[in-house]
């Protein structure tokens, strides 16, 4: 009988402590992520996942992170976001442009959940937006491309005609034109962020048409690999992809989301989170460059110098004079294009791009 009582007491204690543990883990802040592709794309989604892992590493005692991968931009996205909100996630990062409306829609239903939408421009009381100034890196790439190209033709694989992508094309061309005013660009719109065979097809077609430098605004390594198979130089995208093209990758624009993710998570933990827009570049370290490889040292030196002057703020890639395709002056000599509305809503090509921007 004594033993039985003891047993019951022990069991009761065990159940209590178990309860304590589960409530402890329930007290952990749950942070959710919505990804457009797989974390293994070694591009866009990969770099966001690296940011998520930084939260785990630094705040693992207080925070629990979850991600949903391969969420299409559309009605399904709202369901996936709502699912995270319903399962107790108090901070949700939606990491693609097309999640803008779904994020806002779900945010309305869950006023006590904080949302962070990447690359968008619409905020709400509980929706903040953030993006990185990738165009800074693309300007550097444009300069390298102009120096490295023999044919004078760049092959550019674009995803969707949104400001983010158009800005990248323009920055790239402004960089290229700063070296060689006759540089040409051929653009293929893939209308997808992640479709490796199609990205490879686009790269092959561009090379067929004489492009001898390939750059991409899609997420997989396929284009870089297709170029490498023909010994053509190309740029990595969103993360250092050098292991996929050790002899041909020139550099890559790196996305460093980690510090921002950690900061915003801490803000929620401390109760100091507020909505707004964050748009950081090389200066605060949200954008970086992979090592300058497979190029002569004088070109690497030039690239490093340009990177440095952008990082310190001495130079802005969108410094006038900048003309649009119609030849109209859009940024006066010596002036810098304003973030709003010009850079944020960019919907025109700069002069020298011999193509028509899709509607």
């Amino acid at each position, binding site marked *: 009988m004594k033993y039985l009582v003891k047993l019951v007491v022990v069991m009761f204690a065990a159940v209590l402590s178990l309860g304590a543990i589960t409530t402890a883990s329930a007290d952990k802040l749950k942070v959710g992520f919505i990804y457009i592709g797989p974390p293994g794309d070694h591009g866009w989604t990969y770099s966001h996942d690296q940011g998520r892992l930084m939260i785990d590493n630094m705040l693992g005692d207080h925070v629990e992170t979850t991600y949903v991968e*391969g969420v299409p931009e559309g009605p399904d996205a709202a369901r996936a976001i709502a699912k995270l909100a319903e399962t107790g996630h108090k901070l949700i990062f939606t990491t693609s442009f097309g999640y803008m409306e779904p994020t806002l829609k779900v945010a309305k239903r869950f006023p006590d959940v904080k949302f962070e939408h990447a690359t968008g421009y619409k905020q709400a009381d509980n929706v903040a937006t953030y993006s990185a100034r990738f165009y800074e890196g693309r300007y550097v790439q444009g300069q390298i491309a102009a120096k490295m190209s023999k044919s004078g033709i760049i*092959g550019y694989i674009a995803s969707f005609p949104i400001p983010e992508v158009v800005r990248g094309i323009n920055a790239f061309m402004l960089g290229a034109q700063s070296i060689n005013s006759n540089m040409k660009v051929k653009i293929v719109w893939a209308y997808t962020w992640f479709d490796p065979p199609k*990205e490879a097809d686009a790269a092959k077609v561009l090379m*067929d048409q004489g492009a001898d430098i390939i750059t991409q605004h899609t997420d997989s390594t396929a284009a870089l690999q297709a170029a490498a198979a023909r010994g053509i130089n190309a740029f990595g995208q969103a993360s250092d992809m050098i292991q996929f093209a050790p002899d041909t990758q020139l550099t890559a624009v790196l996305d460093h989301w980690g510090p921002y993710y950690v900061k915003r998570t801490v803000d929620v933990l401390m109760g100091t989170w507020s909505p707004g827009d964050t748009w950081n570049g090389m200066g605060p370290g949200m954008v970086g460059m992979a090592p300058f490889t497979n190029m002569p040292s004088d070109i690497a030196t030039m690239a490093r110098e340009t990177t440095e002057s952008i990082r310190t703020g001495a130079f802005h890639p969108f410094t006038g004079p900048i003309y649009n395709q119609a030849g109209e002056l859009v940024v006066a000599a010596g002036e810098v294009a304003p973030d709003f509305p010009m850079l944020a809503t960019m919907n025109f090509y700069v002069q020298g791009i011999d193509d028509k921007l899709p509607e």
Partner: protein
Amino acid sequence: MPDLIIASVMTMMTAATPLMFAATGELICERSGVLNLGVEGMMLIGAVFGFATAAVTGNAPLGLLMAGVAGLLASLIFAALTLSLLSNQVATGLALTIFGTGLSALVGFDYVGETIDQIAAIHLPVLSDLPVVGRLLFGHDPLVYLSLGLLAAVAWFLSHSRWGMILRAVGDSDVSAHAIGYPVVLIRYAAVAFGGLMAGLGGGYLSLVYTPLWAENMAAGRGWIALALVVFANWRPERVLFGAILFGSITILQLNAQAAGLGIPAAFMSMLPYIATIVVLVLISRDAIKIRLNAPACLGRPFRAER
């Protein structure tokens, strides 16, 4: 300009090759009277097992072999269900595609973002260096030749070999073939297995040559296009060749037109391959009698041997 044309033709051939593999296999399968809608699933299974093998062993040709074997094994599941257990072929084929999509994603999970040494284009001294014809005839990757060779072999097999005629007899009248004494079910097993092997190779081509990487659902509908190609080709091998090249060219040409800045809306261009499929299907189905004459009479019907 000639360089552009040569380069574009080379790229088109790579786009046509996976379709050629898968459609050739499905052609044999359907000619024996079995409709296997699981091509997409078998391609994905081939792609992932081929890639995983190449990633683990570092041997891409071995990976290709495994791709074929994996496709074959997947098709045997289908064969056992439809031929031995007499399940519905359409439903079972669809299930195979869904199964293949899921299984490949599961198996491939650890291989996302891995690299392999891809199978490179061949280069024959002298021959490949000939102007114009050198690259066009002797500059493709080995699998392009393999797919063409297999298609030619299938064409010969169907029209000139004894077993080819038996296969067609089984597809056109299983009861008569059985009455004469041919092992109908066994022959169909073999035909389905060949279809699986070829679909697997087509998938392997995608993950080992086309884009040397694994990504979930990377066949992206090519299995379905291969199925449509067989109907489009009226169950005739030489038309499979034509159809695969046509489809491959449209896929590539629309990108070419964009890159050349022709000013045609890109979204419209992206639709072209699918519009072309529909148009061609409409055109050939105007002559319904001809289709019926060519289609294997027992296509999709279960067969049970009456003793």
